[in-house]
């Protein structure tokens, strides 16, 4: 780094770096405050190892989707179909056919099926948006309807039990008392951060989301990149489906209901701009943890899901208002 970095540090509004740290700090404070509330109101039930692991497992499945969503939103898009893709992937990966094949070949078949279905849905979304020129909102709305519908047809609206012992053993394991899926989530967060901040792919995502025309005229293959982004999100939906199947031992067309809202909310609370061009994986992680902890604290205090929904709405608005304050101060 150069000497000039220091001179102008007094004028943060013209610089790119300092803002994110302050924002993440705010999210950490919010998370800590939530934990304090949990400790005060639910005491040991909140602080127990079991409860913490439950929170982390819940956060993992939705969190993986939110990480993928961070990429799509940073790249200037949106995906409403994530919950439906999770459902379809879980159903497809738990049909008797897939399970019979897993019996022969190994449990990895279930995982590849789920991830493959997710990627396929993502590619369809991406192609419709990039080459079909359908706005992301509409293209993924169509996917939301048809993917969940297809899941219902395949499952015949029944819940499919995952019987594969090897799958249950592999993903149900708890090294050091922590479920495997939490480790998987941790790895995906690190990979996601690296991909967004340290690779050509990530840099191009920022450019495409920040100014798609400038990116195109700079020679970036914008359409192909858009397909990659939605395919990536599709893949994370597949991973999330595997996590759900491991936790619930089922594949169901009702998995992932309303997840699009939770995932988008976590991403936006985390500080990723809904208009694209700015995104943070760490922020999304914190957003997911805040949401999951909140749900947990409310549940421990026997508050209904309706109260939770209202609280979530309020939190989204407050978070976005605070962010805008922060952003305005800098212009």
């Amino acid at each position: 780094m150069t000497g000039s970095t220091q001179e102008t540090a007094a004028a943060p509004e013209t610089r790119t770096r300092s803002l994110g740290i302050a924002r993440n700090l705010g999210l950490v404070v919010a998370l800590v405050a939530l934990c304090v509330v949990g400790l005060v109101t639910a005491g040991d039930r909140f602080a127990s190892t079991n409860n913490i692991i439950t929170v982390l497992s819940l956060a993992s499945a939705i969190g993986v989707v939110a990480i993928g969503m961070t990429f799509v939103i940073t790249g200037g898009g949106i995906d409403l179909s994530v919950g439906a893709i999770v459902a379809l992937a879980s159903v497809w990966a738990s049909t008797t056919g897939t399970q019979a094949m897993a019996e022969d070949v190994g449990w990895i078949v279930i995982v590849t099926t789920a991830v493959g279905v997710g990627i396929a849905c993502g590619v369809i979304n991406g192609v419709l948006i990039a080459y079909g020129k359908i706005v992301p909102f509409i293209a993924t709305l169509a996917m939301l309807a048809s993917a969940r519908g297809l899941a219902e047809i395949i499952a015949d609206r029944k819940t499919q039990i995952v019987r594969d012992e090897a799958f249950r053993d592999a993903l149900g394991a708890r090294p050091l008392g922590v479920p495997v899926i939490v480790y998987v989530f941790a790895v995906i967060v690190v990979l996601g951060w690296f991909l967004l901040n340290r690779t050509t792919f990530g840099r191009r995502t920022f450019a495409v989301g920040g100014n798609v025309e400038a990116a195109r005229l700079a020679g970036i293959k914008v359409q192909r990149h858009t397909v990659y982004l939605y395919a990536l999100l599709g893949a994370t939906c597949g991973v999330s489906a595997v996590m759900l199947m491991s936790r619930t031992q089922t594949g169901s067309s009702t998995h992932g209901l309303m997840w699009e809202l939770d995932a988008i909310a976590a991403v936006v609370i985390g500080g990723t701009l809904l208009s694209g061009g700015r995104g943070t994986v760490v922020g999304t992680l914190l957003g997911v943890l805040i949401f999951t902890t909140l749900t947990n604290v409310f549940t421990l205090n026997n508050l209904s899901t309706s109260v939770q929904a209202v609280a979530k709405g309020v939190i989204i608005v407050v978070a976005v208002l605070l962010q805008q304050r922060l952003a305005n101060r800098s212009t």
Partner: protein
Amino acid sequence: MSQPLLQLTGIVKEFPGVRALDGVDLVVRAGEVHCLLGQNGAGKSTLIKVLAGAYTPDEGEIVMDGDAVTFGDPQAALAAGIATIYQELDLVDGLSVADNIFLGHEKTRLGFSRVGDSHRAARDLLTSLGHPEIRPSRETGSLSAAGKQIVSMARALSRQARVIVMDEPSAVLDPDEVDGLFRVIEELRASGQAIIYISHRLEEIRRIGDRLTVLKDGRTVASDLPAGETPTAELITLMTGRDVSAEFPRRTTPLPDADPLLVVEGLGREGEFEDVSFEVRPGEILGFAGLVGAGRSEIVETVYGARRAQRGSVTVDGRRLRPGSVDVAVGAGLGLCPEERKSQGLVLDEAVYRNISLGTLPRFSRLGVTRESAERTAAHAAARSVDLRPDDPDRVTRTLSGGNQQKVVLARWLLRSCRVLLLDEPTRGVDVGARSEIYGLIRRLADDGVAVIVVSSDIDEVLGLSDRVMVVADGRIVHAGPADDLDAHAVLDRILSGNEPTGNEPTGNESKGDAA
């Protein structure tokens, strides 16, 4: 002399880390066109926002018609009689002309619009501006830029504005539309309005202005200068604080006798341009002159692949490019500095170095992982070689002046070591001082063997910068020849007559093909 209509004294406006205005004085009288001159970053935009009530000054006094006023918000400024016509016209395209004129002070009774009244009033205003042909019920988005400007002015008048601030009103207009604009301004002046006119074009200021005030670094450095008589050299010295003499750098070395690098043959797109053929050699600067809408930008964008050619071919170094593919063109060594720098050229909220490396990322990557220090070092070197100011690769690109933003785009292609550089309006919105720097850069690139194409609406710029000039009118090349054989008058003549005596021009190795 009567008391001034508007008087600003010692206006100071500070932002975190920047003193944007540092003691601005401005005196505007009724019935005058008062021009405001200054480089980008001199504080003009901030001053406009202070006048419009968008910013509240930290210090200083605004006196309107003898009374001290403070504007807490834009409504207050309008109520005091100051209306601002912004560079990016702030009209709602989907609304009718009348709705736009009365936006914010609609003619209503009990919440219901009085459409008849507002249409009648709008028609009166438009007629008083000399444009009765604009129907109040017309959808604003269907008007030309000039038409929209008239609507903005009608809006200002509907507020009983006595001071109208115009921020570069001519930037989006054709020469004859500018004439129309000036007629309107003359009428406003005659009826006692004060106009504050901001423009980079000195010749306009000479034509329309009465007096002028020069800003530099947020301060008034000269005021009460006669707009017509003050020598250009003096104005440039005032604006830049230094002498700018040789504006266009001339070729220092003879053009090497090389084979053409870029060959365009019979290029055409339905309704945009037809039968465009030309060649550019390494080290040569080819200029495209013509009016706005003649098809110059379209030609350049088609060569670059941003538009798909329907006919003809583009060949670089003997290799034919796939039509409509920017990344193939970039791969072949083409680079474009687009006309709309902010919307097409830059990711404004990203750091400077990231904008510079945007086209070159794979070079700083190993297996897709960016080596940020290598990227930053290279981008910084490129920024230095275009003399970017401030010399800070981490700065957010949005905060740079227009000239320095253009340098960022240039640095991108410099870093990419592109071989054919297409420049569309390279100095639009760039102030006089930075202009000659950009001219110097372009010439330096050519001297290094880059083939350069320059599109500009400024005829002097095309002539001064280019080795060879092509004149475009109505989507056709109507003239091609050495720049030295032409002057502004001849170019205009060619544009207007639309044809040329073919064959006689000493066009060198120019292959106009079957254009005639």
